[in-house]
C-alpha cells in the first residue's frame, strides 16, 4: 500500500489557481507529480459530470480550485462552483464514492506556496483512502 501513488486530476481556474500553480513553478517550489492539471477559464465551468468522469477514467481523487470568495474574475463563478461542490458531495456518497476524494480549495495567483501545500494535503488524503476502484471503467 505504501507504494500507492494516487492519480489526481486538478481543475484549476485560469485567473487564480492556474496562475498560482504557474507561480509555484516559476518560484521553483516542488510538489509531487501525482497531480495533472486541467485549465478551465473559471471554476464555474466545472460540470459535476467531469468529476465523475475523471474518477471513472482512473483518477483516485479530484481537486477543484478557484479564486478566493470575492476575488472571482467573473464575479460569481467560484460561488457557483462552491454550490455545485456541496451538492456533488452528497451525490458522490449516494453512488458509493467517498466524498473526500473530491476536494475544493481557494488558491490565488499569488499563492504559489499554498498551491504546493494544497497538493500535498490532497495527496496525503487520497493516499489514506487508497485507490478509487468503485466506479472505475477499466
Amino acid at each position, binding site marked *: 500500500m505504501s507504494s500507492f501513488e494516487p492519480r489526481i486530476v486538478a481543475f484549476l481556474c485560469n485567473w487564480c489557481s492556474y496562475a498560482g500553480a504557474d507561480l509555484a513553478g516559476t518560484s521553483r517550489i516542488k510538489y509531487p507529480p501525482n497531480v*495533472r492539471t*486541467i485549465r*478551465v477559464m*473559471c471554476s*464555474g*465551468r466545472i460540470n459535476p459530470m467531469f468529476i465523475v468522469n475523471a474518477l471513472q477514467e482512473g483518477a483516485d481523487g479530484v481537486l477543484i480550485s478557484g479564486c478566493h470568495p470575492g476575488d472571482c474574475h*467573473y464575479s460569481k*463563478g467560484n460561488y457557483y462552483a462552491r454550490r*455545485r461542490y456541496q451538492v456533488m458531495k452528497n451525490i458522490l456518497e449516494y453512488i458509493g464514492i467517498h466524498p473526500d476524494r473530491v476536494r475544493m480549495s481557494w488558491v490565488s*495567483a499569488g499563492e504559489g506556496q499554498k498551491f504546493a501545500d494544497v497538493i500535498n494535503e490532497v495527496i496525503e488524503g487520497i493516499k489514506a483512502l487508497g485507490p478509487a476502484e468503485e466506479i472505475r471503467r477499466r
Partner: protein
Amino acid sequence: MINIKINSVPLEVEEGTTILEAAKKGDTPIPTLCHHPALDSFGACRLCVVEIHYGKRVKIVTSCNYEVWDGLEVFTDTDRVRKSRAMTLELLLARCPDVRMIKDLAREYGVKQGRFSEESDNCILCGLCVRICKERMGVGAADFVGRGVDMKIDTPYSRGSDACLACGACVTVCPTGAIDLEKRFSRNEPVPLKSVFNAGMSTKPVIATPFPQAVPNIPVIDSANCVYLRTGGCRTCETFCEAKAIDYDQKDETVEVDVGTIIAATGFDLYNPEEKPEYGYGKYPEVITGLEFERLVSASGPTGGKILINGKEPRKVVFIQCVGSREEGGKREYCSRVCCMYTAKHAHLVKERLKDAEISIFYTDLRAFGKGYEEFVNRVKDEGTTYRRRELNEPIEVTKKKGKLTVTAKGHPALEADMVILATAVVPREDSLELARKLNISLSPDGFFLEAHPKLKPVETLTGGIFLAGCAQGPKDIPDTVSQASGAASRAISILSKDTIMMEAITAAVNEAKCRGCGLCVEICPFNAIELKEINRLGYTVKVASVNEALCKGCGSCSAACLSQAVQQKGFTDTQILEAIRGIV
C-alpha cells in the same frame, strides 16, 4: 475716478478709497498698527497720520479712515507728521518696552525711552483681535474692558470664553504677539492643524496648498476646520483673493470616467515603528523616521532645512535600518529595497550640514545594488560614517536616561545619541485589497499588487488592460519606478492606439437544435450576455438561448449549468474537457 497727489506725485484712484489704500497703490509706505485690510478702519493707533493740504489749509488726519476727494494733496513724511508719529511711538514704547515691532519703529523715528515711566505690557490696544472676532468670526469672545488707563482686552469676568471657537484668528492678526489664547481667552482647546506633508512636524493654515509641487498647484479649504463652513463667519480669504477664486460651495464629488486602460500606481504606506516599542519611536521625540528626517533637511520643510531636534543641532546621530522589513516568517519577509540608499544619503546630508557630527548606521546587509550605488556608499563611509552590522534577530534597544538616548546592540558598544533615525519598511497601501477587488487583480502574499509574470510580464496584471507601476507592485526605488511606469504607459498606449481589440475566441455558443429554452443559462450568466430568442423549429415557434458575443467574457458557467449540453464554451466544450481527462489519467 479721483485725482489726488501723494508727496506731489499725481495718482488716480477710485472713489471711496482711503488715503492709506491710495498710498499703498502708489507704493508709498505709511506705518500702521491697527489697520487690517479685512477689517473696518478703526483709527486707534494714530501712527498712520498724514498731512493733507487743501487751499491754504493744512491738517493732520489718520490716513486709514480718511476718504480721498478730488484735488486732495497728501504728504506722508513731513516734519509735522514725523513728530506726531514719534510722540505716539514714545508713548507706545513706554507702555510696551519689550515689543520688538514697537522698538524697531521707535528706532526708525529716532525715539528713545526715558520721558515716561515704563510699563511692561505687550498689548497696544489696537483692537485687531476684538474686531476680527466680532466682525469676521461673528463671535465676539473678547472685548475692551475698563476705561482710560485701565483699559485692556479681556473675556467677560476674565473667565475665558465658551463661545470662542479657538480658531486662532486673533493670534494671527495680533501685531505684538500679546494673545494667550489657550490660557486666557478660550475655554475650548485650540487644535493645531498638522501638516501632513511635513510629516506632522509643522502646522498649516485651514486654506493651504497641499504641498509645494501639488498639481494643480492651488490651495484647498480644510472644510472640517474652516470657520465659514463651520459657523458662517470669517470669509477673510475671499477678501484677500484678488482673483475672486475662492469658492466655498465646492464639494467632494465622485467623477465617473470611461477609460480603455488603467494603470494602478497607488504607491505605498510606511510601517508604523510604534509597533516595535524597543526602538522608542513615539516615546522619545528624538527618535524619528527616515521620512520625518527627509522633511527636516528639506529647504521647504518645517525648519527650513536645518537639522534640529528639540531646537538643537544633534552631535551624535544613529541610523537603524530594517525596521519592520525582512522579518523572517513574519508578515513582511521582503527587503524594502530603498532604505540602504536613503540612509546613506541621510548620513551624507548630516555630514554636509553638521561637519563634526558622529554618525553610526546599524545595517543588516548593505544592499547597494544599483548603478553608482556602491560608489556612493563608499563615499559616505569615507566621510567618516561608521557602519555597524547587526543580525536581524538581534534586537536593538533605544533607551533614555537623564535626557540622553542610548542605543544598545549586541556586539557593539552602547552608543549615546542625540537623534535616532529609523528606516521603516515600505508596506502595501492600507486599501490595496479593496482596490485589487475593484480592479479584479490579485495581491501577492506580501500584500502588493501581483504582476502577471515575475520575469516576463512585470508590468501587466492577469486582467487585460490593467497595468502596474511603482511601489504598488512592490518596494522599488525611483529609477526602477520610472522604468516600470514608462513600460506601463507604453503598454497602455499600445492598446489605446488600436481601433479594434482581439479577444480570445472562448465565448459561449448555443446549439439551437439541442436547446430546450429553459433559461437556466440566462439566469446564471454574470454578464447578462444570454437571452432567449424565438425561432421557428419544424413549423413551431420555440424559445432558445442566444449569446451576445460582445458581452460574453468566456467564463463557461452557462456550459456547466446547461442540462442538455446545448450551450458550449468554445475551446472548453464538454467533449474537449472529457477528452483532456481521458488523456491525462
